[in-house]
């Protein structure tokens, strides 16, 4: 995950509620797959759909 010794990439999972469109970002956890929905929305009863999984590089 690291491009060089000084750069560390952290993986995040971004998801969106299919009902209220609430967007949540958290650290990637095993089993996360883009367009899968395993979590419920914390704002309503909707399902959270994973829309993106990406890495952010920090020096």
């Amino acid at each position: 995950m690291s491009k060089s010794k000084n750069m560390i990439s952290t993986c995040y999972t971004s998801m969106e509620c299919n009902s209220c469109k609430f967007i949540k970002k958290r650290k990637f956890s095993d089993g996360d797959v883009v367009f899968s929905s395993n979590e419920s929305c914390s704002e309503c009863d909707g399902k959270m759909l994973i829309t993106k999984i990406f890495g952010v590089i920090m020096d």
Partner: protein
Amino acid sequence: MEIFGYNLDEFLAWVGEDIDTVMMLIWILPVIIFVFYGQRIQLIISSNEIKKDIGKLDEYTTSTKKDFLNYVKTNLTYKSDPSKKLDSFFDYFTIMPVDMDPNGIISKINHLVRSREDFIRLQINTMFSNLSSVELSKLQNLLEIVTTLQLFHKYTRHLYLTAKKQKNFPLILPLQMMIPFIMEEAVALKDAMPAIKNGQPIGDGIGPMIVGEMMLGTTKESAAVETVWSKTIFEDRDLFLLKAEGPNATVGRPGDGLEKIISIKKPDLIIMIDASLKLEGEDSASIAKGFGAAIGGIGTERFKIEEIATNNQIPILALVVKQSIHEAITLMTKEIADSAKTVKDELYEMIRENTSSGQSVLVIGVGNTIGVSQ
């Protein structure tokens, strides 16, 4: 004052009279050295740099190999110790068909590549129990990384040692030119390991990610090995969607998939979405539009798509997301993931501009779909 039997005072007196002779001696000496030993000096300087890179390649090969075997041992259930058998896979090579008569070579290469894929898949399957298709595809990718790094190391070491053995400077020049590119790819391959092991999307997966989103809520059917298709409607146009079957670490077989869709209905337009290597100076995640089949690899899939499109007189348009080799095979960056919305808007605009109501379009999401379902 005497040094080695010579009188220094006399010498200095002579120098004072004829300084030009000494200056000539000072200049001529390096010239003589460079005439006779210049190539050797250059070889020493160049080979030191190359030696460092070969050392890095060796380190990458060893670490990825160790990483791969650790992953296998900790995450999979194996029947007997897989280390020895996997070790033998690292040395597997592929002999490309004879190209003196290039007629029919594509089908030969296709056969060769697919046979190799099938063989590796079968061998891995026999080694582990309860292996899911996702794990199997991940293993194939990891194996490919280690094998490629090992090949890079062996090949560069061979060129280096041959040049040194024969004290042949010109022989080391091509290696000196190639090594920065080899190292760039080697670093990318090494850095690709964590994303593949964790099943995370890579930059190359932007095409399947866009098409996968369009497939949500549609009925997916198998189009070919590890390839799925579905149908949807956009502004009175039939949209056929094709991508590799996610979340497996695979690029699927879009050529065979296209063949299947053509047998159902001939589309009026093909649009291919893929990741493309950016040129130096270009921005990462920038979008470009063009003509022709946007698909990389060995060339057999592109050949098939081009042939089918030509025979059926279907125009092919391409939408690509620019990225470096490192970005393409490592964890997808935020910039690339964020470009998906813009690419989708461009795609719909392309469909509106190039087709009319009642026509049909085939959209192919090209790339490795690891971590991206549909």
